[in-house]
């Protein structure tokens, strides 16, 4: 037995699980085993990325297929025409009953859809909560940023080779905001890593947060807060007193979180989303595999467990503080 054959067998076993992993159909224990392997195996990690790329491309291609308006009208007409016909001219009452029946069915279908939308809402809320939690624990309660912005080189160093490129995007696409800090952090009790930019502007603190999707998706086409340019959809939520706007980009969820108004946060997210997406989708960015990543970007900055219990009010900065700080 040699190491290569052992690893190959392990990879083979993991790859047999990748389809179920991609479909979120694995038990938690098995999914964790797959995730652990993916963290240390560049080959399997690339395999998963390739599968996800195909799935995303398929979703996009199908969603972009046009649906003729006539289909909707034809369905309604066929429903109307399916009413039982008599040899005598149907009375106005019968027409009314028929149309009322159709209306009832359609209303019921809409009601059923509403239940599904509620499920979609829950899913969106649970995903948006990832961003809010990191903002609250790391930026607001943890206060993990300096009064005077860290030098860009220091921030790039903390972010590592792969994510350093994102600093420029955040700096350029958030007009009126100064990037105080950028790092990779996690929340106590969770292995999830967040690429976290803490910025200051408009009298408050705003976070831009990225975290890997790990196969999860925002529900396609549901409850869109706002279509952004470059075909991205931005989802908005109000959680724990914060406004958050989130979108999917490549293998990541990206969030903009702050206590600004909903419109302000949405507008900032819409301005940031296309450029961030372009960078995350770029070949150069994608080329770096997680095998290299794990070696290069060990967790740089872990929030001490104690900060989760610290309760500080949301910090607001006034322009006088900014000028003196």
């Amino acid at each position, binding site marked *: 037995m040699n190491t290569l054959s052992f690893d190959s067998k392990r990879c083979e076993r993991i790859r*047999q699980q990748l389809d179920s992993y991609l479909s979120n159909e694995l038990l938690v224990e098995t999914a964790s085993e797959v995730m652990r392997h993916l963290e240390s*195996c560049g080959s399997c990690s690339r395999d998963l990325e390739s*599968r996800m790329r195909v799935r995303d491309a398929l979703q996009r291609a*199908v*969603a972009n*297929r046009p649906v003729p308006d006539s289909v909707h009208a034809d*369905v309604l007409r066929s429903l109307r025409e399916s009413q039982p016909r008599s040899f005598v001219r149907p009375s106005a009452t019968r027409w009314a009953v028929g149309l009322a029946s159709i209306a009832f069915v359609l209303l019921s279908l809409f009601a*059923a*859809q509403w239940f599904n939308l509620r499920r979609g809402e829950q899913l969106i809320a649970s995903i948006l909560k990832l961003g809010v939690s990191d903002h609250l624990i790391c930026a607001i309660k943890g206060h993990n940023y300096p009064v005077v912005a860290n030098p860009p080189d220091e921030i790039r160093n903390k972010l590592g080779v792969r994510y350093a490129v994102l600093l420029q995007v955040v700096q350029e696409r958030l007009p009126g905001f100064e990037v105080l800090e950028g790092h990779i952090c996690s929340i106590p009790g969770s292995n999830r890593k967040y690429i976290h930019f803490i910025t200051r502007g408009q009298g408050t603190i705003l976070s831009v947060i990225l975290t890997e999707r790990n196969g999860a*998706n925002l529900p396609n086409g549901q409850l869109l807060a706002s279509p952004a340019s470059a075909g991205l959809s931005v989802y908005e939520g109000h959680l724990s007193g914060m406004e958050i706007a989130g979108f999917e980009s490549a293998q990541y969820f990206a969030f903009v979180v702050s206590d600004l108004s909903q419109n302000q946060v949405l507008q900032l997210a819409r301005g940031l989303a296309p450029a961030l997406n372009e960078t995350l989708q770029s070949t150069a960015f994608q080329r770096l595999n997680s095998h290299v990543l794990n070696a290069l970007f060990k967790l740089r900055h872990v929030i001490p467990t104690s900060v989760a219990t610290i309760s500080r009010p949301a910090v607001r900065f006034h322009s006088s503080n900014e000028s003196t700080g």
Partner: protein
Amino acid sequence: MPHLKDLYRTACLLLRDRHEAEDLIQDTYLEAWKSFHRFELGTNCRAWLFKIMFHRLHHVRRRLVKTSRVMTIDGPDGQDEVAAEPVVPQEIRDEDVLNALEKVAVEFREIVLLADVEEFSYKEIAETLRIPLGTVMSRLSRGRKLLRQELAEVARSYGINPRTKQAGAGETA
């Protein structure tokens, strides 16, 4: 009309004929209307409509299969290879992925669409297609791989060499 676009797009990709797809959608909503008393409020309306559509599709397909049989299955279900993973292009155009999907046999294509585009669970797919859960899993795996293989053909046409990808197989930290 709830879920009409999802149903129509799926129908088009399975039947490859717009008019057949439109007929199928009309039949589906008509059937939904007639059997609405069987629908339980609070359950998944989208899954219910897809179930009806696939039931109708089964009849359509039986009629169509008399004139043409579309099957390109390379091996039995579940006999999937894990080595020599096909390399797919970094940038995949809509046109390429839809053309590739069209080449995948309909038995696999329908499951790929239900799982990857409509994001139904294995259980929902099994109920929709009235097949065992194990068959859903094996056909999905096979279907995804067939799609990747077709896209790898696209990659080759772009001049991407798959050998460079396979060189790293078995690599671990």
